[in-house]
Structures are given as structure tokens and as C-alpha cells.
């Protein structure tokens, strides 16, 4: 049974649109992360959190908000989506060093 799930798996929106990506983990991990994956850039950290109500800024945070509502749930918000945010988004969780990734959400901004 998958311990990190993401929804939706695919999303198409228009420029200026409002998008929320959801992530849930059942690992009982304190840490959760949002990454984007782009060819030539690998995985880049957007935001992360070490518990409900906590938010830490990652390496590429511009244009993204995030909220950790519970230990299990971490959301990524794009309030004014732009074509540059077309990407593959991964959520991950960790207790110590090992991060466990979800299956990803592919987002297309037209």
C-alpha cells in the first residue's frame, strides 16, 4: 500500500489559474517536501515542513505557497499559474535521512 499519495496525477490549467496539489503520507513522518522535476535541472526543492503548521522555504519558492494542515497532509498552491510552472511535481516524506516519494503530479499550464 502506497505510503505517499498525490492528487491529482495530471492537471491542465490556464495562465492565471488557481491550482492546488495535494499530498498525503501514512508513514507518520514529521518532514514533508515539495519538489519540481524538469529536464536539465533534476529535482528542485520548493517548500518543506517539519510538522503541522510549519513551513520552510526551499530553493525555488517563487510563485508557490504551501500549507501543512496535519502531519499527514501537505498542499502546494499556485495562485496565479504561469507556463514556467509546467512541470512534474513530487511530494516526499521523511523521518530521518531517507525520503520517500509519491508518484508525482504532471502539471501543464497553457
Amino acid at each position: 500500500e502506497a505510503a505517499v499519495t498525490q492528487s491529482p496525477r495530471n492537471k491542465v490549467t490556464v495562465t492565471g489559474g488557481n491550482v492546488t496539489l495535494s499530498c498525503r503520507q501514512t508513514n507518520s513522518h514529521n518532514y514533508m517536501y515539495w519538489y519540481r522535476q524538469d529536464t536539465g535541472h533534476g529535482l528542485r526543492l520548493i517548500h518543506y515542513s517539519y510538522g503541522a503548521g510549519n513551513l520552510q522555504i526551499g530553493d525555488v519558492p517563487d510563485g508557490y505557497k504551501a500549507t501543512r494542515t496535519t502531519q499527514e497532509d501537505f498542499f502546494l498552491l499556485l495562485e496565479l499559474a504561469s507556463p514556467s510552472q509546467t512541470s512534474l511535481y513530487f511530494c516526499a516524506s521523511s523521518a530521518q535521512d531517507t525520503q520517500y516519494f509519491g508518484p508525482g503530479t504532471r502539471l501543464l499550464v497553457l
Partner: protein
Amino acid sequence: QQQVRQSPQSLTVWEGETAILNCSYEDSTFNYFPWYQQFPGEGPALLISIRSVSDKKEDGRFTIFFNKREKKLSLHITDSQPGDSATYFCAATYQGGRALIFGTGTTVSVSP
């Protein structure tokens, strides 16, 4: 500025050969280096990792060689199998840190 660099971008080897993937980093405070393996359509998964107090870590056919002085490491995949065809990411962080910095990845293709 890419703090973790990987080369080559892609690599093709024959079944049974050894694939060598290279990684280098900038920050001398980094002391934990995991390698993640990613198959198409899936999220990355931890393959093997090493801490800077060691210079070698082996797990089956996968071996990390670490050179702290040169800030370089490499992943060797011996007796490569078609099932090893995937993208491999080198990552780094420092003790107490949880956020990983990933390289750009090396895509390995193993031909039977």
C-alpha cells in the same frame, strides 16, 4: 548555481558491463550523500547512501566511492542488467539538515 553536479547526462552500457556515474559537489559542509533511482512514471527511491566518514559503500552490485578531498563521488553498477535502466540522482545534505540538494541526474540504458 548547481551545487551538485552529475556526469554524464546519459550512459549506455551492455548487459554485464560496469556503469560508472560521477557526482561532484561544492559545499564542504555536506556530509551525507544518497543516490536515488527513478524509473519512468515513478517517483525516485533511495538506492544507496554514504556518509563522509567513509570512502566506500557497497550494496550488492552497487558501490559508492567517495573522495572527500576532491569533493567527488561515483556510483558503480557492476554486472549491469536491463532492469537497471533508470535515471540516477546524486544528492547531498549536511548533518542535521533534512532538505536534499539533487544533481541533474544520469540516465542509464542497459542493452541486452
